[in-house]
């Protein structure tokens, strides 16, 4: 036994201690509990993985049987609370606990002056618990527990400033949109149970591996598509991406940890985990690739014109998640996970850096009111620059390696995918550097006096900056070979060159627009006013969903279910019975006069009636 359970149990303990007693703790005590539990979890992860190496196959630890049935679809069904560690899980564990630890440290500085300090850290620890359950689960149901749990924490933390209406609305939106995805995921799980009689990865995947690849549309394709629906919800892919940009209402460390580095990548992890199913369902696999590609370019184009620094990065996250799905969808599972890892580095850094800027400017998030911060916040500037270079695929940064692996794999699948991916890479570089230039270059356009953040904020920035620059040299795809097998397709220098050139071009255009010729973007926006408005309004997708889905549901609920069924039918029946009884009783109560003579008269009348009835009906014979 390596006691995998300790890895999630430690943050859970932190959650319980801070959640129950944190109100009475000093902030330092809250810090010790929250950061200490994540630190111990991180150390235990490292110890576990080192102890398990070389980790050629999955290690499963079975703790207890959750439930079992002898007669489920002809098979016996046993679902246990089992945790497993293989190389894929090891990578995810390192990302979650490592980046989680850095962001917890950062949050000390960022949240210090906020109300509900202990509550924030309790939720963060709870999130760590569920996320670790998600990646450690050895069957779909344990994974689903974590999956739902991180959704809950996401809701709680997006709505952390619950007195603000937009924040609580955003929390609800995230929760409800995720329900749609989870519905698909649940159906996928049911189909797996029906077809394979188990939810254990160790039983389902070997069974699937022995089946021939489906040519048409069969059970595996349906399972793959339903799991994709779940992944689309959690990982903010078209058509369910709408919740993620709004999720930026939460505190910035939450955006970095949950809505950039870890939770939103759960869909990619799950898809990669179910790689065997997708490899045997080509239609579902193709759908994954196209959903990813469409999301990547769609949200990148929205990101081009947004003015809120966190929203720019939010659309960037959606877009980069699309990249990961593209990688997974063209069969480059290890490249997809590699990009997940490097993205966790540089996107967490982008958000934390943005948080540092927001902190430096006293809460300002609008790029139009920033500028010239490179002198007053030099460390933030340098680390954010590192992240921006990495996401743009600048040579030898982490994003360069992972993005190129995906694009090369996409090219081998279909050149069209590659070219759209290259355009997206250029757009990505453009909008990220647009944010960098607007924040750090030119003249300061705000009012608050800018100051550099304290060391507790800068330390995680520097650590993530180093990882963003050097993380590409981690051989994640090589490490994952035992899980996904060797991926074909060697490095093609010309493809790499094209992709890199696209990123550099994006940086150059951003430089031209926002440093060299600052009047140009406004002129272009006027020139292409209609297209600009469309992008600025995010293609008005929220409005379309509102008109097509939200309004009919709200109106139907109000008019049909509330006023029709509830008030009309149910209340009407109950009240109707009551009022009929009242009116009948209102007449009958005159019989109860209290006068003995009238009672006697009634008795007489009744007896006469009875005798008449018996006589007429011939009862007395």
């Amino acid at each position, binding site marked *: 036994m390596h006691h995998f359970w300790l890895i999630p149990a430690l943050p859970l303990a932190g959650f319980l201690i801070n959640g129950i007693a944190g109100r009475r703790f000093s902030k330092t005590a809250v810090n010790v509990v929250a950061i200490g539990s994540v630190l111990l979890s991180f150390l235990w992860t490292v110890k576990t993985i080192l102890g398990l190496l070389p980790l050629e196959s999955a290690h499963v630890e079975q703790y207890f049987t959750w439930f079992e049935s002898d007669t489920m679809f002809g098979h016996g069904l046993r679902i246990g609370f089992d945790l497993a560690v293989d190389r894929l899980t090891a990578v995810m564990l390192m990302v979650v606990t490592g980046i989680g630890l850095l962001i917890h440290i950062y949050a000390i500085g960022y949240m210090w002056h906020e109300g509900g300090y202990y509550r924030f850290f309790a939720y963060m620890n709870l999130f760590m618990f569920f996320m670790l359950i998600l990646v450690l689960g050895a069957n779909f149901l344990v994974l689903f527990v974590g999956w739902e749990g991180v959704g809950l924490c996401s809701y709680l933390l997006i709505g952390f400033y619950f007195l603000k209406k937009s924040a609580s609305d955003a929390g609800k939106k995230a929760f409800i949109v995720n329900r749609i995805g989870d519905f698909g995921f649940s159906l996928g799980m049911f189909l797996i149970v029906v077809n394979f009689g188990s939810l254990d990865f160790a039983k389902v995947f070997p069974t699937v591996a022995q089946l021939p690849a489906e040519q048409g549309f069969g059970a595996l394709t349906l399972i793959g598509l339903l799991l994709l629906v779940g992944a689309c919800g959690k990982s903010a892919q078209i058509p369910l991406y709408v919740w993620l940009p709004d999720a930026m209402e939460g505190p910035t460390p939450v955006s970095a940890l949950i809505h950039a580095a870890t939770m939103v990548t759960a869909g990619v992890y799950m898809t990669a985990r179910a790689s065997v199913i997708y490899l045997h369902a080509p239609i579902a696999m193709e759908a994954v690739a196209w959903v990813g590609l469409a999301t990547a370019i769609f949200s990148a184009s929205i990101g081009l014109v947004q003015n809120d620094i966190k929203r720019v990065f939010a659309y960037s996250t959606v877009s980069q998640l699309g990249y990961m799905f593209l990688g997974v969808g063209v069969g480059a599972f290890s490249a997809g996970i590699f990009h997940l890892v490097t993205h966790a580095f540089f996107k967490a850094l982008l958000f934390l850096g943005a948080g540092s800027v927001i902190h430096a400017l006293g809460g300002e998030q609008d790029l139009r009111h920033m500028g010239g911060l490179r002198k007053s916040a030099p460390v933030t500037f340098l680390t954010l620059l590192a992240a921006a270079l990495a996401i743009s695929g600048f040579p030898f940064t982490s994003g360069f390696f992972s993005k190129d692996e995906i694009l090369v794999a996409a090219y081998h699948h279909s050149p069209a995918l590659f070219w759209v991916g290259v355009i997206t890479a250029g757009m990505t570089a453009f909008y990220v550097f647009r944010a960098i230039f607007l924040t750090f270059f030119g003249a300061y356009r705000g009012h608050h006096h800018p100051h550099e953040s304290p060391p507790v904020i800068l330390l995680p920035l520097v650590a993530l900056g180093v990882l963003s620059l050097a993380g590409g040299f981690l051989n994640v795809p090589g490490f994952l070979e035992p899980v996904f097998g060797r991926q074909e397709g060697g490095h093609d220098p010309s493809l790499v060159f094209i992709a890199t050139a696209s990123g550099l071009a994006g940086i150059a255009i951003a430089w031209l627009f926002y440093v060299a010729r600052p009047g140009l973007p406004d002129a272009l926006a006027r020139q292409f006013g209609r297209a600009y408005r469309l992008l600025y309004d995010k293609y008005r997708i929220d409005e379309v969903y509102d008109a097509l889905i939200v309004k009919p549901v709200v109106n139907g609920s109000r008019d049909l279910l509330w006023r029709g069924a509830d008030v009309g039918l149910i209340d009407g029946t109950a009240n109707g019975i009551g009022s009929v009884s009242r009116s009948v009783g209102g007449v009958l109560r005159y019989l109860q006069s209290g006068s003995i*003579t009238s009672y006697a008269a009634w008795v007489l009348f009744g007896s006469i009636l009875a005798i008449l009835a018996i006589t007429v009906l011939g009862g007395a014979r």
Partner: protein
Amino acid sequence: MTSLTAVPLSWYLTLSVILFVLGVTGFVIRRNLITAFMCIELMLNGVNLSFVAFSYELKQVDGHIYSFFVMVVAAAEAAVGLAIILAVFRSRQTLLSDEVNSMKL
């Protein structure tokens, strides 16, 4: 014996109906509780008369037995009823039934 048999059954029954209807009418129209009480006795005796007449006509003893039971019940009722009437009079100083029309004391 023959003199008795000369009276036909229908006469007894007619007398019984007259007694009963007198009782009912008195019970309904008179308001004095003691009068109402005596009307009840009248009804019971009207019924008793029909029992006895049938019993004699059919040469069976059942009707006699029934009439004894009715008399016993009537005696018991007289005891209880008079006690109630006394109690009512003590608390309300009246014996008019329409002034005793509320269930509470």
